[in-house]
């Protein structure tokens, strides 16, 4: 019988280069990011979902009324990452945060950085910082920072 220390162990990497079809509505959301605009969708009840949603989870109606939200917003909840791992997009300490953008009734998950953990509070105002390279992805917003 082998000892535990003699067991074979090897690193593996599983990778798929998916291309995700965004669909007619979400394509507009991603296109708008390239113009540094964040879009939400407005329901017949007046509720604004941001990021844009294709359907209203409450009324189940199909949504198509796009409205611009942000780029500022309020932190609703956050989780501080003191030591980012290699797969994190930000190498300095940062927070994953739920951000309720101005004009929206729902919150969006993104990152907040260039601050200390103690600077962050639920209710802190943040604003979007745009990436230098636009790829029609949510990462076109590089991160959020505290409003000066």
């Amino acid at each position: 019988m082998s000892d535990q220390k003699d067991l074979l162990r090897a690193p593996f990497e599983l990778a798929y280069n998916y291309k995700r079809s965004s669909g007619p509505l979400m394509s507009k959301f991603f296109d708008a990011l390239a113009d540094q605009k964040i879009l939400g969708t407005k329901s017949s009840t007046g509720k604004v979902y941001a990021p844009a949603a294709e359907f209203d989870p409450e009324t189940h109606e199909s949504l198509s009324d796009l409205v611009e939200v942000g780029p500022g917003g309020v932190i609703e909840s956050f989780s501080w990452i003191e030591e980012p791992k290699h797969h994190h997009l930000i190498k300095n300490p940062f927070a994953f945060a739920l951000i309720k953008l101005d004009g929206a009734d729902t919150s969006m998950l993104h990152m907040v950085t260039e601050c200390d953990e103690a600077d962050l509070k639920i209710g802190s105002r943040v604003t979007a910082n745009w990436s230098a390279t636009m790829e029609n992805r949510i990462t076109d917003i590089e991160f959020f920072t505290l409003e000066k």
Partner: protein
Amino acid sequence: MSEEEKKDYAESPINLEYHYTAGSATTRFLNQVKEGKIVGQSCPKCSAVYVPPRGSCPRCGVATNIEVPLTDKGCIESFTIVHIPIPGNPIVPPYVCAMIRLDGANISFLHLIQGIDVEEIRIGMRIQAVWKPKDEWTHSLENIKWFTPIDEPDVDVATLRFQES
């Protein structure tokens, strides 16, 4: 169609990095594979031979502690002809993935079949491993490049059914 080609998709790569720990049965198996040997493990209760071994007999629930050296010859138990290319896969379709039943084994494992027109492939066909050069051998069944048909009569398919002992 607009002249300006519109990008209607988002790049969405998925990447998973992990460590695989082989466990003692697979470690013993792969250490032999590195030497160019295929060694199955046999159940002390029902005598079924497992290759690659997982360390226990799923029927009897006992450790398969008897090592059984096997040949690199066997037959095709089942196969699929792959016509659709997978991005990043260096193998050009059409190619054949087959469940390989080595002589003396009670279970099969997945490997490639090459060296024959895909239309000729059939269940029961006799095959043998084609090994990479010895200096390229690692702890992997990829030491076998593929299996290729050999000039021996087909195996009776009925004998491939699991034999109750």
